[in-house]
């Protein structure tokens, strides 16, 4: 896809209504869980910036713990943006340099860190989960994730890393719409204009790694979501069939990441399948 090709964007989000719904969701989940607030891992990117902003708005800055894990691949720009955002939201940032932990882990298994290898790339998100849950348990908080619908649908996250959280307030919001929310929330331009990156390796960008822009990805995902055929998507968006095929393939390959651990049915009612109860314990129990 050349930069000159015009891709039809997905329909705009009603940002006023959606930001209110997301805040209500965060508040209700925290209250019903009997928790005091949320712990959020900040990356310096737009997703966690949107989520932490909405959480701080609805819960108050005292009930939100932002955590940043610094390592050898972290960029100065990210650190600067995170500090500025936390200052603006009156949040007390907790920052750890985890490079020592990673080095110790490497030593314990007699290996050298290779940040280009998947097994090593997943270390930071899984360490992040450990840090987030430590603080969540200490404070009776929930762990709030920042995964968006685009990433989730193609499996662009670490299983039991950044995907291992209690709530995902923007889990059904496409990246295109996250930008719209960010503008509505008046997030700093430095965050808005930054190329999206998982921050797992130096200079990594999401779009280079995924192999297409988020505009393309979201146009395909949206088409598939509303049951359009590949031909209809190509006709409406000018996105070539090969790109649609690639997205479809990513969706199928990552389905295991979107489900809980896979078990199989043996009994009359089976956990996570058909033994269904309310998320929250009713008062009469």
């Amino acid at each position, binding site marked *: 896809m050349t930069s000159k090709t015009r891709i039809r964007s997905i329909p705009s989000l009603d940002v006023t209504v959606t930001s209110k719904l997301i805040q209500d969701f965060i508040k209700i989940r925290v209250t019903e869980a009997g928790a005091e607030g949320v712990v959020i891992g900040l990356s310096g990117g737009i997703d966690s910036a949107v989520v932490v902003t909405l959480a701080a708005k609805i819960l108050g800055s005292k009930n939100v713990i932002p955590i940043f894990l610094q390592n050898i691949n972290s960029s100065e720009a990210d650190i600067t943006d995170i500090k500025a955002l936390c200052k603006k939201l009156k949040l007390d940032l907790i920052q750890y340099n985890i490079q020592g932990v990673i080095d110790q882990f490497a030593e314990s298994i007699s290996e050298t860190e290779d940040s280009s290898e998947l097994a090593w790339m997943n270390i930071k998100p899984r360490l992040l989960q450990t840090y987030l849950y430590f603080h969540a348990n200490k404070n009776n908080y929930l762990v709030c994730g920042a995964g968006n619908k685009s990433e989730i649908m193609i499996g662009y996250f670490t299983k039991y890393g950044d995907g291992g959280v209690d709530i995902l307030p923007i889990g059904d919001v496409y990246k295109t719409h996250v930008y719209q929310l960010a503008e509505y929330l008046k997030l700093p331009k430095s965050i808005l204009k930054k190329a999206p990156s998982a921050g797992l390796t130096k200079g990594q960008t999401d779009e280079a790694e995924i192999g297409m822009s988020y505009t393309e990805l979201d146009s395909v995902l949206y088409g598939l979501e509303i*049951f359009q*055929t590949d031909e209809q998507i190509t006709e409406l968006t000018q996105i070539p069939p090969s790109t649609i095929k690639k997205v479809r393939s990513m969706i199928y390959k990552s389905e295991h990441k979107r489900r809980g651990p*896979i*078990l*199989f*049915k*043996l*009994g*009359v*009612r*089976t956990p996570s*399948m*058909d033994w269904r109860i309310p998320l929250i314990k009713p008062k009469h129990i």
Partner: protein
Amino acid sequence: MSILKFRVALAQTHSHQADPTSNLQIISEICEKIDFDEEIPTIVVFPELSVTGYLMHDDVYQLAEPIPSGPFSQELARISQKNSCYLIAGMPESSIPGLLYNTAVMFGPEGFIGKSRKIFLPNHSVFNERRYFRSSPTINVMDTPMGKIGMQICYDIFSPEITRAHALLGAHTSICISASPGVRRQYFETFIPARAMENTINFVYVNQSGIQDDLIFWGGSEVRSATGKQIAKLEYNKPDFEVCTLSTDSSQSAKNFVPTLKDLPSWIFKTIEESYYDI
């Protein structure tokens, strides 16, 4: 000359999920095993949704097709013709856009024989069929060179009325294709001989085997004669295959011995219908 005997090949397959290409290949390979016999035709019976796999989830919207004009139907017709056999398989049917059925189809060397749509769509326990399918508003039997044969699908067997209707419509054999997970085995293994005996009709049951997502299909396909005698029984939990022979007139002799249909008074149906609206 009327056909007095026919063979039933129980093709207890493990279907690939949302992969009709692989499944049609399996169906083709199994049909190629069948020895053609001019006097004793063979019906190869595959499980419920054997063309697409049972757990397609939302992919069913892409995989359902008009029957018999759709490409998968045409491939089934080609397989039947090439191997000079009859075959019954399960597949999602698209009637008009957005209206789907869980359907059993029958093809023969002469082409499309008929289809029956599932009536009882389970939406309890692990099942989600009413999310996708419409319940058939009718019960039918098919006119075949082997006489009248009824088809039903899986949970239909839990309702005795379906097989009874097959018998009353003149079928000598009722064929149930199924995708039943293991926890229901005891029910099916009780219903199969019961449906045969209470209606004095041959009863053929063919189940999926193996794992699809988080369900394990128990296999255990079997055939019962019109007197309830077990004619064939396949392995549990894994693909299996067996051919047995049935008579088109065994139903008649069984009816002479136990005349349940002759003794069936019509007022019973009226009572059932009236009480249905009272509950």
